């Protein structure tokens, strides 16, 4: 009799652990997929920037310090993209965003530049990419939230760390104002 009780308890526990494990694996996989969405859009942003800098250079060659700041920040963001954690990466991307803000502020001073089709296309693409980053980030953070919640709630929290599950980092861009940076208005 006692043997049966023990066996039932063990079976129930094993079922719980297997269920919890599978759920965590699914959720962690979703976090990874969501992260790759962000990654694609960040890379796209990095790809757009050199052309943008070149285009602005053609009309505002003497704004050297602005170009250097953008180029350096981009290089740092690309480097962070290769290895860094979401947190460090977000930091590098935030820095890049603020240099882009100065670049567009500079561009505002050159009416001829505003009329150039290539510049228009590039800023439009960049704005669209920023939007996508914002939404990819939202999706990613939602998945991180679900995963971290599952990780920390009972009874999963009892065995999650033993099985090697760790909480994932949110991808935080500095603040709402920063996110809107490269919005360019043509008027």
């Amino acid at each position, binding site marked *: 009799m006692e043997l049966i009780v023990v066996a039932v308890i063990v079976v129930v526990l094993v079922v719980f652990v297997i269920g919890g494990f599978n759920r965590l694996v699914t959720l962690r996989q*979703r976090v990874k997929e969501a992260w790759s*969405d962000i990654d694609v*859009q960040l890379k796209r942003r990095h790809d757009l920037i050199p052309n943008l800098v070149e285009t602005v250079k053609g009309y505002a060659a003497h704004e050297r310090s602005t170009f250097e700041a953008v180029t350096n920040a981009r290089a740092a963001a690309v480097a962070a993209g290769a290895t860094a954690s979401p947190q460090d990466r977000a930091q590098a991307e935030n820095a890049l965003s603020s240099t882009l803000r100065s670049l567009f502020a500079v561009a505002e001073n050159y009416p001829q530049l505003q009329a150039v089709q290539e510049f228009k296309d590039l800023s439009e693409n960049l704005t*669209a990419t920023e*939007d*996508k980053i914002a*939404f*990819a980030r939202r*999706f990613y953070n939602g*998945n991180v939230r679900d995963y971290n919640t599952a990780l920390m709630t009972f009874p999963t929290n009892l065995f999650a760390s033993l099985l090697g599950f760790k909480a994932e980092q949110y991808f935080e861009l500095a603040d709402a104002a920063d996110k809107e940076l490269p919005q360019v208005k043509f008027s």
Partner: protein
Amino acid sequence: MSSSAPLTPTVNIYDAAAANRVRTVVLIVLFMAIVAAIAYVFGEYLAPGGGVALLPFAFAFSIGSSLVSYFAGDKLVLAQSQAKPLAEGEEKQLRNVVETLAIGLGIPTPAIYVIEDPAPNAFATGRDPKHASIAVTRGLLDKMDRTELEGVIAHELSHVGNRDIRVMLLVTVLVGTIALLSDGMLRSMFWGGGRRDRDRGSGGSLLFVVAIVLAILTPVIATLIQLAVSRQREYLADASGALLTRYPPGLASALKKIAADTEPLRVANKATASLYIANPLHDHNAFMDNLFNTHPPIQERIRRLEAMD
């Protein structure tokens, strides 16, 4: 069937989405049960114990016709609506909005179609997010600003993300199946019922009445359920769309514009009407609105959106 308890302003859009999801499942289960009930009663009527024997047949029948709509339904709907695929480089804003919001939902960008019609409307179809299409009318592109367009597209993408698009195609077929079944049942009873009734005595005649009532009522009930399901789905997609854009006023304003537009959508018909974001036919009268409309009253949808925060 206003099983739709009004959303109080204190309910957030997460809860609204969850509650609507449950209601939708309940309605669909009910729907399957009706198919089984018809087959069972009819089977018992034909021969004692025959009800159980008919059940597999009923399910096989509905599954078989479901498969056809599963694999070809979206193509049929798009062709019937005269939707043309959006060429690369055209309507950049639309493409951007669709791509961006799809990323926000974590689904692949669906195929984008445009319907050349001045009435503002949109629908989504397909069998899963990987085989999904979204169609918008020219009127929608012309009349909506960006936040409104985002609201509409978010609503449609929610149908895709929630797997509504599959249910919408399948439910249409299931309703058709029920109508066919009960029609066949009614006919066979009309021609052969009297003789069997005499052979079997009073027990048979009671069953006969039940079967007749079922045969007459089920198509009506099934249709009502179909409409109720599609209305619940609209509320749900409104809620999830607002959750996606984090900006309920965008869709609310788009719905106001659509409500103000009185032009019927030429390419829509009764079968495809329930797919659109708002009833494209404009043929309903106020009295029948609650039971026989494919869509919830647009004013009620606007009110719910405005109650969200």
